[in-house]
């Protein structure tokens, strides 16, 4: 697919637009429909488009799996941290009124922060899920190759499987 110039050019235009729209949905959620969750999904779709058009490896290069996993956790922590902040400022957990001197301003800040947390987690989870599902066959093939090497190198066909995944793929291997 990455040879098709039309798709390449169109997606180069589309990807930033989708991201911009994602940001709009994220921050306009106070005034119209939208919010962290919807924005997260939209934002993620930009990354998915990038990965589909320019290849999985390039896609993974943009947002590395390790960093992605950290973003997933970070979003939840931002949300929870906002709650804890309310608690430290002598309010209850998730009390936004105490965040700033003016309760309504505090509510605004609180909502902004938690929506950001939701958006961050959702966007990274969606990208993460996509890679986890889409890379599965390639990953499997890799494991199969390793198993074949293992089987060749040792005469024992019952070599201890090293990982949970490998034990499964080994069964498939033996079947063949």
């Amino acid at each position: 697919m990455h040879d098709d110039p039309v798709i390449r050019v169109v997606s180069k235009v589309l990807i930033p637009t989708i991201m911009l729209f994602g940001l709009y949905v994220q921050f306009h959620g106070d005034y119209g429909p939208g919010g962290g969750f919807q924005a997260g999904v939209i934002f993620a779709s930009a990354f998915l488009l990038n990965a589909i058009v320019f290849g999985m490896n390039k896609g993974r290069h943009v947002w590395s799996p390790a960093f992605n996993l950290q973003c997933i956790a970070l979003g939840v922590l931002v949300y929870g941290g906002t709650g804890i902040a309310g608690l430290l400022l002598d309010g209850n957990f998730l009390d936004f009124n105490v965040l700033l001197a003016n309760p309504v301003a505090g509510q605004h800040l609180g909502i902004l922060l938690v929506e950001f947390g939701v958006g961050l987690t959702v966007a990274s989870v969606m990208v993460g899920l996509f890679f986890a599902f889409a890379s599965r066959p390639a990953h499997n093939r890799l494991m199969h190759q390793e198993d074949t090497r293992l089987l060749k190198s040792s005469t024992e066909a019952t070599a201890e499987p090293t990982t949970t995944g490998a034990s499964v793929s080994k069964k498939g291997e033996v079947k063949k």
Partner: protein
Amino acid sequence: MNLSILIAQWNYVIVIALMMIGFYTVIARGNLIKKMVGLNIFQTSVFMLYISMGKIQDGTAPILSDDPTMIYSNPLPHVLILTAIVVGVATTAVGYALIIRIQESFDTIEEDEITEALNEEALAERLAEQH
């Protein structure tokens, strides 16, 4: 049952019918993907039940405007269902991940074939146990 009420409440009646289509698919179908699809239909229909109860005569979307006479539909069911949709997709993702692993281990996603494989294994174990 009073038929006239059912006709007046036809909206709920159809939602219930949809729910049961989904529910039947989950419990009756043996294909695991079909089960997940049934679950999706079942849950979406439950969302519709909630949204139905939030609707009010002549209401509009619950986004405040300057017009004080405006009637808004109840936002609470909307919030609950937003949460429920997210929970639903989370379950779906885990379900599909399990289906992929089941396919790799059992080479099928038909429930009866999996059960057959399981029974064979259990039988073999029982025989091994007796010896």
